[in-house]
């Protein structure tokens, strides 16, 4: 028996479903990137380490609990200011595996130099 997916009736039903917004995910709809929330405060990032995959697009949502911080990692093209009262979003698609050290590059006080987050790309 021919499946609905390949029969003419199946195609018609699919078109109808799509028109009504009933099509399931993966059928013509863009996938939302995985979201990872990162919070900054003097003098640490939380989480301290995140894991990504080569080729996977993720969205980092950056917030601060106190003052303005920065998030900088040249190999992954991350160079953002994290401003109080606002969520900063950055899209990242790693191209190479590795263990990367992201730093705060907005001078924030005595412990600024030790403020880091590790990004592991597998």
């Amino acid at each position, binding site marked *: 028996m021919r499946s609905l997916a390949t029969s003419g009736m199946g195609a018609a039903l699919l078109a109808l479903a799509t028109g009504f917004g009933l099509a399931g995910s993966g059928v013509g709809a863009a996938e939302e990137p995985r979201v990872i929330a990162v919070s900054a405060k003097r003098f640490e990032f939380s989480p301290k380490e995140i894991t990504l995959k080569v080729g996977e697009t993720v969205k980092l949502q950056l917030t601060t609990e106190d003052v*303005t911080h*920065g998030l*900088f*990692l*040249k190999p992954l093209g991350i*160079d953002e*200011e994290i401003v109080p009262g606002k969520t900063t979003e950055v899209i990242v698609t790693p191209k190479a595996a590795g263990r*990367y*050290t992201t*730093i705060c*590059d*907005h*001078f*924030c*006080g*005595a412990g*600024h*130099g030790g403020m880091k987050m590790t990004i592991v790309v597998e």
Partner: protein
Amino acid sequence: MDRRKFLTVSGISLGVGALYTMAPRLAGDAEGAELARQLGRQNGERPVPFTVFQLSDTHVGWDGALGTKAFERAVEVVNGLTPGPDLVLFTGDLTHDTEAPGEHAARMKRFQEIAGRLKAPKVYHVPGEHDAGLDGGELYRSVFGPTFYSFDHKGFHFIALDNVSRAKPEVGAEQRAWLARDLARFPGTAPIVVFTHRPLFDLRPDWEWFTSDGDDVMNLLAPYQNVTVLYGHIHREHHQMAGHAAHYAARSLCFAFPDPQNTADKKAIPFDKAEPFKNLGIRQVQASAAGKGATLSVSEVSLDARELSGTEGFNQLLKSPAL
């Protein structure tokens, strides 16, 4: 004469800083004298020999074992030199930051007390992030003046650049525009010395040893054939050609960082009671009999005692076709 050998540089690293001698080969050489006259006509001021001393990262107020002893001793050493330097340049992190009310201003005053003992005719400064990163440089400017500026000395054009006051490691568009206007007054042969705090190239970005618009700054300097950059921030000596310019870092006067090329973590090299000035740029340290501090046994290390060709050090190639 080979124009490449026109400017010789002999350097003496006293460890606590770096001494640069900028010396056109003028004496007893008619061709050299003619070249100097032509250069003088081009630059507006004829180059004559003089010396510069660079001190960096004194971090007055930082709670280390030595306090300000290395800084104070460095001042004594500089004052004991004959001849003394024409200029002393401080390349940032004069003080260590603090948020205690009134304390940062007190540290800047303490810095000035110690630096004020220098017998050098002229002393110039640029801020480090610990001086100016938290308040946009407001307190620093009230004590030391502008964070970026330029001046001329005996045929050399000195440019102080601020890559810390914007809190991020960058010079910024406004200052780059000022730099472009400042440079426009000079011919391509003018000897230029840039002094700043952070490296203007990517030395170790994950240790924040970079300036994000450093390439833009160096592109503005690209038409100028005689460019040398002096900087601090990294608490160790370093010499690297980046682009067409030679970049020199001076050691700190409080603690040292490890070699960025073979070290994973940026951890301060521990203080060694037996050799308290070790890694603070003093190349040879002898422990005193009393065990306190160290007698400074200064080793003369020539940054470049021989004539150089090419574009290393201050012996920059003069390529003016007019010469």
